Each structure stands twice: as C-alpha cells, then as structure tokens.
C-alpha cells in the first residue's frame, strides 16, 4: 500500500534543540514541493530541556487543520520515542539515534518500523557539531519519504545565509548525508511517499505573523506591549518591520501601560494596538472603559491560553469569550472578532482598525494559541491588497476643520451614535475629553440625569449601528442536517474537516461558525438556528460559553456541546469523537 502526499510528521526533542525553527524550515521546504502544509508547534514553557515537538501535516488538497495519526516521528531524544510511539499508525516509522538505548524490538512489537540512524556521527563528522542532529534527522526523513532534496537544500541555504557560507555548507552536508542514508537504508519499506507537484508559490506563515501583516498594511503605526505568550510574536514582528514600514513599537512596563499608551496614541489620531493574552487583558480591563467613554478607537489583540491565572502558558484555550465581551465596568459598545483561518486573520488585521475608527471604540481581535502559532500554507493570491481599505469613519480632516461653521462638539448627539471626530491640533476643534460622563462638548457632567441618560444611550446606539458591519456566522455542509455543529474562531478547520468526514461516512452534519461575535447578530443567527439540526457547540472551554451566549442572546438552548479544555487545539478526531458520543 503506497500513499503519496498525505501524511503527518512529528519532529520532537528537548527545548533548545531547534525543533521549532528547523521544523518551520522543513514546513517551508515541503511547501516548496507544491504541497499543502499545516504545522503545529507544541512546546513547553521553558528555555532548555523538557519535551517539544512540531507536528507537520502534508497534503495534496488544501487543509486547514492538523490531525491525529502520525506516520513518521523524527526523534532527537529518547523521550520523544517514549512519548510518541503510540501516536504512530501501524507501519509508521521512528527515526532515532542508533547509538542510544531505544529498543528496536519493542517498537516492532507495536507495529512501528525502527529507523535507527547515526545522527550524532553525521552531525559531528559532516557538520562539525552535534547540534546539527536536527538537520540529520530531517534529512533522513526526507530521504525515506522521497521528498525532493533540492527543496530542502534551498531552505537550508536561505535560512543559514546570515550565519555564513561555512554554516550553510555544513548544514547542507549533514542533511545530504542523512537524506542518502534514509533513502538507501529505509525508503523501500516505507509506504508514505512525497512527490513534488506543480503548484503556485505558497507562503508558510503562522496566525500571529499574518495578523501583524494585515495590521501593518491597514495602517497600524504603533504597537504597545508587554511580552506574553502567545501574543509576543506580534510585537517581535513589528519590531522587525517597523523601520521599513513606518511603525514604532514600545515594550513597556506592563499591560496596563501598553493599553493606556495605545489609547493615548489613538486619541491623537494614530492607529495603535496592544497585543496580549488573558493575563495581560485582565490588567487592561479598566482602560477598556476609558476607550469606551472617551470614544477613542482602540484595537486589542488577545490570543487566548488556558488559565485561570498563569494556567498553561504555552497551550491553547477558548476560555476568554464571555470575559472579552463584558470586561470592564458598566456598558459600552465594543466589537469582538474571532478569525477562523489564516486568510481571515490577515483581513482582521486591517479590518479591526477600520472598525475601531468607524465606531470610535474598542475592537478585540480574539485568537488563541492554536491559531497564533499554527503554520499553514497560504496562497498569496488569497490575500487581497485591493480589499485593504482605510476607513476612518467620521473623521474631520484639516479642510473640514478649516471650514467648520459652528463650535465643534466632540460628542455631538447623532442618530447613529457616532460623532464627527477631530484629533488635537486644530484651532477650530479644541476640546477636552474625559473618563467622566460629559456633555456634547466634552465638559464633565457627572451629576445630571438628562446628560447621563442621553449620553449613555448615544454610545450604546453605536452597538446597533455596528451590526451593519457584523457578518452572520459562516455556514458549511448540507443545507439540511441532523446535527449542526456551532463553533467560533480557530476551531474552524478541525470542525469543517470533521463535518466532511462524518458526511462521507453517511451522517448528515453541517456547521455554523462565528467570526464576528459582538455585537451579536441576533436576527440572522435566529434564522440560521431555525433551519439547524440538533445543535452542538464545539468549544475549547469547559462551560460551553458560546452555548451560554446563544441562550442569552436568542433563547436557543443547544442540545449539547463538544468541549475540551486540555490546552490543545481541536483536531478533526476530537470533534468526531465528541460527535459520536453526543449522537449515539
């Protein structure tokens, strides 16, 4: 049985062994052979030691998610062998250091093919350093599967260019020797093969980077942050691109500072954001209300990880949904967008800033560790620059302010709740904003019934107005179904693939998937629920928060939920297992 271009690798070792960086290089090389790739890093919260792995799925067809069965493990240490033998399919292969205590017979007993190789010797002799066992192991894997060596060599050349010709040459020699050894010794007995295909160039990029790219192109000029996994790479990305693209970053003293600094920048008219995770978002909550009452645009990027408190710093969660919708005291309009694919995450990057300026309020972009760190092949043509618009809403430019015929009222009462906005600097629009309740001109009135009643209602009218920009949940699968899976955000790929597989097995399942969550699109959701089958939410949290939200906003009680809170993003297998339990 020979299976071509449809398999999963697992590349594992200790922290510090270059699992993620070399794994990402391998993903890039696979993409250059014309295949679709999804790679999910799984790493521990430590700098050295422990156990990290990088799981890469390869397919000829577009894929949006990783999946569970693994066909080949590249083990840089014995712990990887111990932990991941059970993940391998029957006949799958285990590449490991031949000069180690790994028991080949035990592997065979579990129907795993042992592929011992002299990784250390190759690294030392061909590369001059044992560090390069990572490259040796990847070379062996490429050789066994028949992957085009040139694709790998190209990535090695590009990746190590900065470190000099000698480093490039050493890594090429190590990978080449690994490749030849794998091909000669083990290729014949391994069923899963890789062959190059003609395909347009595809990017391999993670969720954080593609969000940052969208934000930059959407005019984000300032990023204020305190490092916190899994959002830190957004700050790093801007640090690396700022000088060239006219953006500044500030690594500040804490997340309270980050969000307040971003509010200060937005107040004077610069698109600024604060990326963080749940702990940082908790610190930001008071300031969110300042953006709300002063009607200052603000984008907060929140990549969720499990809590409470520190929880699992390097793992994933969807536990912050309800918190995000209501964080900070009292009521004010906000928008919450939870992109579901890399392409949509790019779009969200620029769209969030337009929404923030249009509605002059907070926009939270809700990702999770899973999507933040997931590397996927993306077709550049699917990122549409012609759709990247800059919409500043009711922004008064210099000419408009020059011609202002009456005194400027920053918080002028309007039917849609949005007041024309001037930023400080023009003599015709001098005003003072405040966190207190206030009059139309911005002056404090924290006592009067009339002002409070009118001004609070004006702000909340923006909620209603913003519904015009809120898309109903996306649908997928047959129009009529027995079961309708309801998800939101990053779990889209896994749920969608589960829907396909279930339907291929004779079930009738479809899905609703929320990306624009808040303000909640009550009417279209009700219409969709009326047509839905038995409803099950699929969520990475234990309380079924989307189910609670549906009940609160529409009165609909879901029939059940498929919930995991183990810190791992969904696989299609997780969803299918839950589906089986729920529809027994």
């Amino acid at each position, binding site marked *: 049985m020979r299976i071509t271009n449809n398999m999963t690798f697992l590349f594992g070792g200790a922290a510090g062994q270059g699992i993620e960086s070399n794994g990402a290089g391998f993903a890039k090389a696979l993409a250059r052979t014309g295949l679709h790739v999804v790679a999910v890093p799984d790493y521990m919260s430590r700098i050295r030691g422990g156990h990290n792995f990088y799981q890469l799925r390869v397919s000829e067809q577009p894929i949006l998610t990783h999946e569970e069965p693994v066909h080949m493990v590249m083990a840089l240490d014995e712990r990887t062998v111990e932990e991941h033998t059970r993940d391998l399919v029957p006949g799958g292969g285990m590449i490991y250091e031949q000069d180690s205590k790994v028991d080949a017979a035990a592997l065979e007993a579990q129907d795993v093919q042992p592929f011992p190789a002299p990784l250390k010797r190759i690294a030392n002799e061909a590369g001059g350093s044992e560090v390069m066992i990572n490259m040796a192991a990847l070379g062996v894997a490429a050789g066994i599967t028949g992957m085009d060596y040139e694709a790998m060599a190209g990535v090695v050349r590009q990746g190590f260019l900065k470190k000099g010709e000698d480093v490039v040459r050493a890594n090429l020699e190590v990978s080449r020797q690994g490749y030849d050894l794998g091909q000669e010794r083990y290729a014949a007995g391994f069923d899963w093969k890789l062959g190059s295909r003609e395909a347009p160039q595809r990017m391999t990029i993670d969720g954080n980077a593609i969000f940052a790219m969208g934000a930059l192109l959407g005019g984000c000029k300032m990023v204020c942050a305190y490092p916190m996994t899994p959002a830190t790479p957004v700050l790093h990305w801007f640090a690396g691109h700022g000088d060239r693209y006219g953006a500044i970053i500030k690594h500040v003293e804490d997340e309270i500072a980050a969000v307040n600094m971003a509010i200060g920048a937005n107040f004077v008219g610069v698109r600024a954001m604060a990326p963080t995770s749940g702990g940082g978002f908790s610190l930001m909550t008071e300031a969110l209300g300042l953006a709300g009452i002063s009607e200052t645009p603000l984008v907060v990027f929140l990549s969720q990880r499990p809590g409470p408190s520190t929880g699992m710093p390097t793992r994933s969660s969807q536990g912050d949904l309800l918190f995000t919708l209501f964080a900070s005291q009292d009521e004010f309009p906000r928008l919450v967008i939870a992109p579901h694919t890399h392409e949509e995450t790019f779009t969200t990057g620029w769209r969030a800033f337009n929404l923030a300026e249009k509605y002059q309020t907070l926009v939270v972009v809700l990702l999770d560790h899973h999507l933040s760190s997931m590397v996927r092949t993306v077709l550049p043509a699917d990122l549409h620059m012609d759709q990247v618009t800059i919409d500043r809403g009711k922004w008064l430019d210099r000419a408009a302010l020059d011609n202002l015929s009456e005194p400027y009222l920053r918080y002028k009462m309007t039917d849609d709740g949005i007041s024309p906005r001037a930023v400080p*600097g023009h*003599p015709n629009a001098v*005003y003072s904003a405040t966190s207190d309740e206030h009059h139309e001109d911005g002056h404090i009135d924290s006592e009067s019934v009339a002002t409070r009643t009118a001004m609070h209602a004006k702000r909340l009218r923006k909620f209603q107005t913003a519904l015009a920009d809120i898309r109903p949940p996306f649908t997928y699968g047959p129009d009529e179904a027995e079961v309708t899976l309801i998800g939101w955000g990053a779990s889209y790929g896994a749920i969608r693939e589960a829907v396909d597989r279930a339907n291929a097995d004779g079930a009738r399942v479809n899905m609703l998937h929320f990306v624009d969550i808040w303000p909640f699109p009550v009417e279209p959701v009700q219409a969709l629920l009326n047509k839905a089958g038995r409803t099950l939410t699929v969520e990475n949290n234990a309380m079924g928060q989307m189910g609670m939200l549906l009940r609160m906003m529409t009165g609909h009680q879901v029939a059940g939920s498929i919930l995991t809170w183990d810190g791992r993003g969904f696989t299609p297998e997780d969803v299918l297992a839950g589906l089986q339990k729920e529809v027994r």
Partner: protein
Amino acid sequence: MVTRQDYASPVRPTWCPGCGNFGTWNSLKKALVKVGLEPHEILIVSGIGCGSKLPDYTHANGLNTIHGRPVIIASGAQLANHRLKIITTHGDGDSFGLGLSHFINAARRNIDLVDIIQDNQIYGLTKGQYSPTSDPGFVTVTSPHGAIENRINPVLLALSVGATFVARGFARDVEHLSWLIAEALQHRGYALVDVMQPCVTFNRQNTYDWYGERAYKLQESDHDTGDLQAALQKAQEWGERIPMGIFYQREDQPAYHEYLNVLQAAPLVDQPLGQWTEEHLQDLVEEYV
C-alpha cells in the same frame, strides 16, 4: 499673540476656596502665555483627583483619564504626535500610588512632557486619606496611628532614574512656579515639576504657612543645576528647610522620540496612511515563500 483669556473655559473650578490648585492652575496658564503656546498646540492629560479636573477648567486640548495613568497615556500621545506639547497634571496619589511605575518609566525614558504633580500630601477628593508623599506619623482616617511608611521623595526618585529636568515649586508663589513651568515647557525631554500645594480642607499640617516657613529658593543660592551630586544632596533636604526651584537640568540628552528612526521624517500622526500597495504586500509575502 496668545493671552490668558485664550485659555478661559466656560466651566468654573469646583475646588474649595483657597485650594492650592488655583495657584498651580494660574501658574500653568501664565507659563503657557509666556512661552507663546496656544490652546490647540498643547494637550493636557490628567488622572483622577481634585487637581486632575484642571483640563475641564482650561480651554485647551485635554484628556482627563483614569487614576494613575495620565503619564503613560501622555507618553503614547507624545510618541504619536511629538509636535503637540504634552503636559500632565495630577496629584500625589495619582502619580505615586497607582502611577508610580509610569512616573519612573517616563522619567528614565526621557519622554518629552511636562509632568506637573499637584502634591498636597493627602487624598482630597476621597476625603482625607494619607498619600505616598505624606510625612511619617501623619494621622488621617486611614493612618489613625500615624503613617508608618517612609514618604516618597519625588525629586530624589526622579533624579535616581535619570530625569533630565527636576524642579519643585510652591502653589502660593505663582511668579516662581510659572517661571519653573515655563522652563519645563522649553525643556527637551521629561520635566518634573513637583508642586507643594496645600489642601485647605483635609491637610491641616502641610498648610500655606507650613510650606512658606520652610521653602527657600535654590536659584537664590549658588546651586549648580548641572551638578547631579549637588542635586541629590539638595533633594534630601526636607524638614526645617525645603529647597525649591530647579534641582537639576541637562539639555544634551535627546528625548525618547528623537531616537526613533521612524519619527525623523515627521510626527507619526502626519505620516501617510493607506500608502501600501500590492508591491508592498508582495515584499512581505516574499519572506514566507
């Protein structure tokens, strides 16, 4: 030419008669007129407290924020538009309670702003609790047996983190305080103006007379404002005699925004928006193929 009338707001202060805030407020307006800054050229950022209502009483760009955060909000505004002259006005509770780390960080970053602390050594708006600058032993509702903590010394603290302009004024001496603020407005980088300003309602200890009897002017002595050691010495003087004036000043250190490459061309707010094209996207894509 700008006059004090240009800064007149229709809103009258709610401060108690005789409140120290009046002196600080008048000094600020006087200084703004002196250096020729117009209401649209400045942004006054405040926090929460009696003194933080100052922007509401002043016709100028203002942002009355949340407790403890004005300095970091002002820092964001400053980096986003360094053509605006940024002034923060807030009390000792706001600055040295919640806001302590922002104070230290703005000073060590040398953010170009004038940080005016309306320092009455007590919480007024919340009705008379002791503050981070209250003297040890100070009895209030929340320190019934007298404050046990050491007091924050704003001048010493600012000097210790590399502040480039450090001054103390007295709300009753408007002539002197307005001079200090004018100097601060013309300073390159972070400028602290810690103002001794009595709370006539809740602080019966640190009164106009109490400050008046102790305050003396550094600039009437041979104090060298370029000498950090001398400044550190003077900063520790607090008790029978309290120095006021400019403790320390250096103009040779660039402000934070001057170091940022992107800001060399123009203030961030004036830089183009929406200038990116398909080519720029392709350049970024290139990094990932």
